[in-house]
């Protein structure tokens, strides 16, 4: 049990007896983050994003005169033709199956219609086909993007006011940006279909990432509230804050990852496809990225942004020239 208990670890981090070079080695973390983003970005770029029919529109088939309880046959047939996208299979009324899949050219449409007809043993001419437009229209996307931009502007101002420093706000938003890019490219690299559930998960990550950073920065604010009187540099104090909130950050991410992980495992391995897999994957990626950025990127960025401020520069110089005294254990 004691191996699982982080309390002692937390004790040492709190007192500064044990300290990780979270801020002092920030260039390493930046390099790791950029490297990972580049690799995943290239993989995602090569693979291309797999947009679901909710966004692209697609082809629709209606098979009349069948037992509507059997949707698996249709799924199997469609997967033979379109392996990357999960078809939407719906019963229309009491005896018609509606199958929607990504947009197919007319030959592929004919072939799939014929296969569906034979799988359900109905006359091929009875299977009707048509094109459908996206039901996640451009309007929804535009509005969502506008919403996110308004949110970022507003939250940027609120954070700047709360921390009484616009650079803290900027550092948090930069860390968020890295989370968003990471989530997008990692999801793209894994190659799951992008569905409305993915977008919902993505928006959840947006809030989570900032939330996580605010908790760390709140500790920074507290540690540096009386900076002129401190005998440690701003950088050391931010490093201490990041270390002191480390146990919290680990606990938080574990607590958030447990249900997400459970849903991901069941969604991906037991159910195979669909909503649960998409939303839990994007959340899983986003939470890991959000935790990483709030610990390893945001405090470092804050130090980089603020270290040139006159008060902090002078204070650091004073601390450096002062006679040796107990500071943080490096």
């Amino acid at each position: 049990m004691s191996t699982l208990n982080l309390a002692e670890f937390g004790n040492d981090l709190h007192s500064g007896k044990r300290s990780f070079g979270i801020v002092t080695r920030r260039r390493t973390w930046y390099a790791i983050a950029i490297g990972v983003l580049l690799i995943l970005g290239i993989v995602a770029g090569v693979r291309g994003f797999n947009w679901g029919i909710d966004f692209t529109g697609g082809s629709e088939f209606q098979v009349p005169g069948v037992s509507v309880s059997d949707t698996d046959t249709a799924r199997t047939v469609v997967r033979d033709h379109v392996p990357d996208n999960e078809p939407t299979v719906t019963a229309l009324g009491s005896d018609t199956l509606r199958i929607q899949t990504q947009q197919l050219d007319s030959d592929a449409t004919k072939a799939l219609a014929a296969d569906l007809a034979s799988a359900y043993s109905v006359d091929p001419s009875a299977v009707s086909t048509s094109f459908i437009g996206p039901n996640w229209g451009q309007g929804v996307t535009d509005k969502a993007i506008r919403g996110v931009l308004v949110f970022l502007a507003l939250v940027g101002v609120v954070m700047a006011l709360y921390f009484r420093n616009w650079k803290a706000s900027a550092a948090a938003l930069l860390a968020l940006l890295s989370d968003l890019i990471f989530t997008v490219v990692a999801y793209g690299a894994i190659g799951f279909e992008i569905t409305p559930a993915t977008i919902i998960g993505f928006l959840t990550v947006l809030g989570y990432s900032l939330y996580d950073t605010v908790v760390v920065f709140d500790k920074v604010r507290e540690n540096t509230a009386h900076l002129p009187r401190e005998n440690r540099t701003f950088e050391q104090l931010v490093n201490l804050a990041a270390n002191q909130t480390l146990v919290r950050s680990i606990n938080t991410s574990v607590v958030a990852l447990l249900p997400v992980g459970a849903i991901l495992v069941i969604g991906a391995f037991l159910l195979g496809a669909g909503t649960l897999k998409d939303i839990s994957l994007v959340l899983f990626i986003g939470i890991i990225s959000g935790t990483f950025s709030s610990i390893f990127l945001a405090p470092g960025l804050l130090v980089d942004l603020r270290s040139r401020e006159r008060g902090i520069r002078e204070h650091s110089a004073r601390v450096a020239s002062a006679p040796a005294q107990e500071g943080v254990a490096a």
Partner: protein
Amino acid sequence: MPVRRIALSAFAVLLILVCGGLGLAVATQGWQAQPKYALDLEGGTQVILKARSNTGEPISSEQMNQARNIIAQRVNAMGVAETEISVQGGTNIMVSVPGSIDQKTSDALRRTATLAFRPVLIQGAPNATASDGGGSDGTSEIDQAKAQAASDGGGAQAAPKATGSDAGGASDAGGGASPTVVNGKPAWSLEQITPEVEKQWTSLDCTDAEVRRNHDVNSAPKSAVVACAPDGSAKYILGPETADGTSITDAKAAPQENSTYYQVSMNFDKAGGKAFGDMTTALFNGEGATGQFAIVLDSLVISAPQVQAPTYGGASITGNFSADSAQELADQLKFGALPLEFTVESEQEISATLGGDQLQKGLIAGLIGLVLVVVYAFFQYRVLAIVTTLSLLTMGMLAYGIITIMSNMSEIGFRLSLAGVAGLIVSIAFTADSFIVYFERVRDEIRDGRGIRAAVDHGWDRAKRTILASDAVNLIAAVVLYLVSAGSVRGFAFTLGLTTVLDLVVVFLFTHPILQTLVRTNFFGKGHPMSGLDPAQLGRNVPAYAGRGRFRSPDERKGRRSRRGGDDAPTETLAERKVRLEREMEDDA
């Protein structure tokens, strides 16, 4: 009564109100005891609307998309249920509504967007006035208007203003059967008011949303009608239609010169422009009962501008429009201008797209996850994890109760999709973070040498700020996305906002007061090794002040604890703490 008891009582009342209220509504109002599900889990009704061009020209995909957006706006305006709307096969619009389609939605779909221009005869208070028996109160407004009309143009003040634009076309105002003359009288004459209209004027209650929705004026283009403002803030008597929406060729919103406001400009075709021009000329010259005309969309007066200048061919409407409200009006004008007519081609039941096992397995997965959270919390916080568990449990109950209530209320009609269920489980886990922030703060305070009770109070003061600040981020996200977005993003914002508010409620009214109460017990207050608050485990290796001048060493605390009474809880005064901290500093140096 201490604050913690008040908070706990308030929380108990809230829990009872939510659960009891729901139970009562289930028993007496026929509500469902569980939330309603969205299309993917429950299935619903699919309506296919077939577009027909009333000009005979082929329908462009641009027009279809425009029509699709406007129908989406109309259907989604009615709550947060997720409706799917797409263009199918070029000329059909497919609308899928979860559950059975209600009358309101069905009407909204069937209603063609009819836009018309009518002169305003009388504008008045929105409520019904007939209830006091006399009826003379209401009609007196009409009499008054008639009397006033004799002397001047009259009219309301704070109305938007319409001015002519230079895009004028048909200014030849002569000849032909004008649509502006109805029953031998001009459309803007008070003489258009019939006794039936007078009766309706006194009885129609525009403040009632139901009344506004069902009130129809489109069926009577050739006579005066009573109509409401969309928000129920005003009631109008309008003259017969002088022009309809199909005569609009274009409408757009643009910033107004020398002003922070926006304006909407529109252009008419030749016939419409002439009728519109005749009406505005007459209104401008004070020939009308008022100087205003009304833009009527779907039987509601969406704008009633005052005529600033007679205008043929084109007009611009100014007023206190924001960029959004101007764009909205322009869109409404344009939709009225769409030469499309929709008929319901089919209405069919559709099944859920996801099998029932998806929801079931998702719920099981979520439950496993939450149980793991509790187990993990136990390893981290020992018996203190009970507080986490209880908080999560009450949080879950409140969330379930409120979502069920929201989905039963027809005005809101919230529905849970599978993504929503997953999101809800995850956000409940996220809220566990507030407890983590709080507990870690309390532990920090103990590490700094505070007594456990004082540590809880001080830790709370600091954790409170952090929790408020970080929840504010989520709350801003929820509110902004709810206001700005549409469709399933809106549903998401709703859930996010709800869980964030509940997180605050639970932390403030339950978790903190419960912890305050618990630290008054020996088990927590003295930091039993299993309590999660044991100072010895938190690295406080200095003897703790144990009251009555005694200090307890960590070993002593580990070994014997149950013998002491509750009166010597390990608290210390500030002065004592200062002395001790100084001693620690010396030790360290």
